[in-house]
């Protein structure tokens, strides 16, 4: 009545013989269908358990999951398009905060949004913390006059420890919750404009062109120095795996370093014709790196980190100060200066423009992404900090178009 394929296999001695994969005699004639399967399964299991002979490997970088909803009949022509409904991308910022005395310097990195949903911004000599869940602002520290201004800020993975790079070449590590300085790192000869954490290692990039790995747990914290840039290191990003470090400099060069080998870079990418501050590792494709060039270059370039090959180069028409990949979709966001001072959202891999977000009245310098991946904060020379729901609305808030904010941050509230 039903499919007797299993039975057919069971009666097929050649098959059974193969399935057992040895010269063993097959007991069954009319076996219950599951028996040779079970034997074969056990054999298969035994084989795979035989770990002293075999190693099972899977390729790290999985292919994109099929998006289309599966229809019941095989090979059925789907009339509607592949993508789910296009979401509404609000063209204006959700909220704008004042950021007076924000230093208008392209080479610095004064904004970061940590995993505890606290945003840190440095305004001249002071570091402020803005709690996105409550909407409250607090001052973390005002640096002594001769040490400052602050030139970079970066949260560690825990979202609690904050690294603060200074103009006088020092880097301070702060416990942002207890408002306590934990230690001061020295090593650079001039200002530290870029920071990147890799677990307990804080990598710092300086005007002196050096990149230093600092193990913040030990006294003698300098554990590695990467030399290769001849001018200020303004961009620094560790890959998601923590294995590769991308650095961009005012010398127009991008280096990719392997964590284990600080003396020789993995790739030296010289295609940009201006300073490279914008760097972003792709979260959904592990060997993909996006870089953006300054005013004399204005391109976004995409690189295959395994081979060092440039996969694509897009002329954006404007200085690129920052790049962020979406965590939810295959999209890339770039921030720009003259003339539009906009954020541009690109579809990947087609690099078609999906949206242009305007509002800033002076060049956008710094961007940071919320831990839930939905909101982006941008700070510009116009001394404002703006928030954009560009990557989507948090699930719990459903798919409604963003409403005017009734209570403070009603939409960013439901992040956890």
């Amino acid at each position: 009545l039903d499919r007797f394929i299993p039975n057919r296999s069971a009666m097929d001695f050649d098959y059974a013989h193969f399935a057992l994969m040895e010269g063993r005699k097959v007991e069954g004639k009319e076996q219950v269908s599951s028996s040779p399967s079970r034997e074969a399964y056990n054999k298969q299991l035994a084989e795979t358990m035989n770990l002293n002979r075999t190693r099972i490997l899977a390729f790290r970088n999985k292919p994109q999951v099929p998006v289309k909803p599966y229809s019941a009949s095989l090979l059925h022509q789907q009339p509607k398009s592949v993508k789910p409904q296009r979401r509404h991308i609000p063209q204006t910022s959700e909220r704008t905060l004042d950021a007076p005395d924000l230093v208008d310097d392209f080479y610095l990195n004064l904004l970061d949004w940590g995993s505890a949903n606290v945003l840190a911004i440095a305004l001249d000599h002071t570091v402020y913390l803005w709690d996105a869940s409550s909407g409250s602002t607090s001052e973390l520290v005002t640096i002594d006059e001769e040490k400052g201004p602050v030139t970079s800020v970066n949260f560690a993975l825990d979202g609690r420890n904050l690294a603060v790079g200074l103009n006088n070449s020092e880097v301070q590590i702060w416990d942002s919750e207890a408002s306590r300085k934990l230690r001061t790192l020295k090593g650079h000869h001039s200002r530290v404009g870029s920071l990147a954490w890799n677990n307990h290692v804080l990598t710092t990039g300086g005007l002196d062109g050096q990149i230093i790995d600092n193990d913040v747990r030990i006294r003698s914290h300098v554990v590695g120095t990467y030399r290769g840039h001849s001018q200020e290191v303004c961009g620094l990003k560790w890959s998601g795996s923590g294995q590769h470090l991308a650095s961009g400099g005012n010398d127009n060069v991008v280096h990719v370093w392997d964590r284990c080998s600080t003396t020789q870079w993995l790739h030296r990418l010289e295609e940009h014709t201006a300073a490279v501050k914008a760097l972003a590792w792709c979260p959904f494709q592990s060997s993909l790196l996006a870089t953006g060039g300054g005013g004399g270059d204005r391109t976004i370039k995409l690189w295959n980190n395994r081979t060092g090959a440039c996969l694509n180069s897009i002329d954006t028409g404007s200085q690129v100060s920052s790049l962020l990949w979406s965590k939810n979709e295959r999209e890339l966001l770039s921030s720009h200066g003259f003339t539009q001072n906009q954020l541009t959202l690109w579809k990947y891999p087609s690099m078609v423009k999906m949206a242009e977000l305007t509002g800033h009245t002076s060049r956008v310098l710094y961007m940071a992404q919320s831990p839930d991946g939905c909101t982006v904060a941008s700070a510009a020379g116009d001394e404002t900090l703006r928030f954009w729901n560009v990557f989507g609305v948090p699930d719990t808030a459903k798919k409604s178009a963003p409403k005017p904010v009734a209570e403070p941050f009603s939409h960013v509230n439901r992040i956890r």
Partner: protein
Amino acid sequence: MASKTAAAKDIITLHGSAAIVSEFFCYAANSILYNRAVYPEESFVKVKKYGLPMLLIEDESVKSFLSNLTSQISEWLEAGKLQRVVLVIMSKATGEVLERWNFRIETDNEVVEKGVSREKSDKEIMREIQAIMRQVASSITYLPCLDEACVFDVLAYTDTDVAVPFTWIESDPKLIANPQMVKLHAFDTKIHKVDTLVSYKNDEWDEEE
């Protein structure tokens, strides 16, 4: 291809055999993805291969995944270190393994160690591969319907002395409990012999055997 001469018997080298097998795997994987509708039909484009119309997926991420795979598989085959390649189809929602396409590889170690070559006609190998491809395509007649959205992955079973490249990670075997199994044809380049087997999750047994 592998053969150097157009004579009646063709020479197969280790390198050539590895190329044949890894290329076979790429086309077989594409065929499975198409026939099992893991990806929608429109994502595929038709090409001629093995004397058959074969389908290749257009999606960049799948293409690059498969090409990375095949180049690594080819390397392992030349080193004689690859034991099998398994294409696993899992439920997208639950991650449960629904189907396993098992390509077991037997390598003639003498060739790997001594660097000798073998003789076999290209045509014959192609015919054997063609038979397998036909069987894959016709497998939809007996394999249970995959009613839900599925994803796939590929596992490589290698010797333990293989250095794991950083783009690969150790994995569990992703077995199916109490599977049904169907053996397909094999092909042999005289250096590598590839057996094909598909095992799949039992359909809901309404009545017992």
